[in-house]
């Protein structure tokens, strides 16, 4: 006969321990496994990548700046840098650290793996976009060159990752788009989002919460030190300049994006008709393919024909069939702006 109080407390202690060890992401077990995985090679590759980004942004790398961004002990960093120098990847000149050609190539290889993996996660899995970066940070150290090339082939050799960053080719070329950050973009001009920075996470979360996406059309209405007000796909958005700074915008190019004024299908009221303008860039992978298969292609007439008792999902009449979509899906289908509906409402 076991004392029930004792049995119950024992049970909850065990449950708590298991929870602390294995809870998603933050469990001690995962942390410990992650620590084991981050060896010398990982660290070196992270340092290389960081120097590359610094040089790319027009800064020079130094011990101090590296220590600030990488969050490791100085002692460890010095050791790694010495090792890299002896391998001929970098050269040091006083406090300045710069990449040699080999180091540069190495860094580009890592970046290629990282961005392709993000593309893979976006197109071929159901992983939430908040986790792409984090998972790619791990995968980039593990993928071999052959694996990366096979991955590129099966993804159709993409040029940009889901955040809009160019993916280096196997030869190391990258296609950059001319762009400026959103606060600097001229007022009243048509543009589209080419890149959304996924770091730091807190700012990225705010951008995602506003439903802003790479490829989305925008027009800045008002820009000052306090706020940036702009419209994107028929909805008005207000951001602080700090957040807006992490969004890069380019002038409207002629093909590929929607030239007409568009809005979201989710805004089409019951019984209203419109024409499909296209699918948002943010609609990816299996979801995009499925919507295209179902007939959500540009120029097709669409009508909101039914709403479920709870308001979501709604059914749309398209090419003779009634297809139900959830609101978050209908958000990604863009329709032509009807003339009688005021822009921005």
């Amino acid at each position, binding site marked *: 006969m076991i004392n029930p109080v004792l049995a119950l407390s024992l049970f909850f202690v065990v449950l708590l321990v298991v929870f602390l060890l294995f809870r998603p992401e933050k469990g001690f077990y995962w942390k410990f496994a992650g620590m084991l995985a981050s060896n010398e090679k990982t660290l070196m590759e992270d340092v290389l990548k960081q120097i590359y980004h610094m040089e790319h942004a027009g800064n020079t790398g130094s011990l101090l700046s590296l220590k600030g961004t990488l969050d490791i002990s100085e002692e460890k960093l010095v050791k790694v840098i010495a090792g890299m120098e002896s391998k001929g990847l970098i050269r040091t000149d006083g406090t300045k650290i710069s990449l040699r050609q080999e180091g540069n190539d190495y860094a580009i290889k890592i970046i290629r793996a990282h961005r392709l993996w993000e593309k893979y996660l976006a197109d071929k899995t159901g992983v939430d976009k908040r986790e792409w970066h984090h998972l790619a940070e791990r995968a980039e150290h593990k993928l071999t060159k052959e694996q990366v090339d096979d991955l590129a*082939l099966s993804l159709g050799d993409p040029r940009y990752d889901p955040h809009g960053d160019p993916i280096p080719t196997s030869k190391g070329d990258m296609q950059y788009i001319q762009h400026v950050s959103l606060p600097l973009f001229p007022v009243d001009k048509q543009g589209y989002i080419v890149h959304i920075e996924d770091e730091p996470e807190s700012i990225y979360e705010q951008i995602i919460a506003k439903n802003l996406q790479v490829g989305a059309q925008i027009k800045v209405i008002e820009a000052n030190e306090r706020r940036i007000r702009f419209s994107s796909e028929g909805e008005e958005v207000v951001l602080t300049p700090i957040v807006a700074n992490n969004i890069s915008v380019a002038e409207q190019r002629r093909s590929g994006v929607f030239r007409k004024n568009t809005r979201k299908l989710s805004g089409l009221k019951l019984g209203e008709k419109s024409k499909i303008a296209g699918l948002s860039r943010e609609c990816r992978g*299996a979801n995009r393919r*499925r919507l295209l*298969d179902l*007939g959500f292609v540009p120029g097709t007439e669409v009508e909101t024909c039914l709403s479920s008792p709870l308001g979501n999902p709604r059914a749309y009449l398209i090419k*003779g*069939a009634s297809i139900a979509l959830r609101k978050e899906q209908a958000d990604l289908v863009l329709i032509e702006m009807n003339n009688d509906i005021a822009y921005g409402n």
Partner: protein
Amino acid sequence: MATEANCDGCAFNNAANLKKLGVNVSNVNFVVALAGNPNTGKSTVFNALTGLKQHTGNWPGKTIARMEGGFSYNDKRYKLVDLPGTYSLLSTSEDEEIARNFILFGNPDVTVVVVDATRLERNLNLVLQILEITKRVVVCLNLLDEAKRHHIKVDERVLARELGVPVVGTSARFNKGIDALIKVVHDVATGEIICKPHVLKSISGNIRHAVNRLTSEIEKHFEGITNSRWLAIRLLEGDQSLIEALGDNRIADMVDNQNRVMEKIAV
């Protein structure tokens, strides 16, 4: 042109020649694949042909696994393979893969595509894709009863001319048109009807160029191939199973088979 295939007025009485063989599919002369969008009454057509009683719900996408059945007509035995209902063959889901691989590598002698007469446009999406994979296709224009109820008429002759393959109107639920369907399937299988399928016209600018270049490259390597453009499209999409098939000998086997069939029909 094969419009005469759709001979509404022809006097033929198949009922005496048709035998439903149920699940007995041994020693067959021809293999017939049955494809179509979900909810077009594809399984009803299957049951009407084979005499089997596979349950068919009013549900898009009931058949996931392949179902097989048989029938015999004019002394020839046919195996009928019911493929999963799909909207397209270009995506990545499991059921599409089953359907795609069977039409591509299973060497069906005839592929019957069941089409919903009330939603022709959306169904043609799949028909046009299948026409890229195989030349020997019969379109079964089903649900004519429903079309009538919704005041929709489809001109079967125009459709057959546009698609370049025979079109047979049916109401499988009421067993109407099934005899004519069997006759046409027989004629296509034995080479009495030669199809000249529609070629995609609206592929735009730079992708057309890329597809054409790859198509001719594939034709250079595989003589007599009849679906080079489909392979080109799928390879450009990065279809992993096709890349593998190119590596082992499955593509070569497929082409050999196409050549053999062409010879058989020519004779």
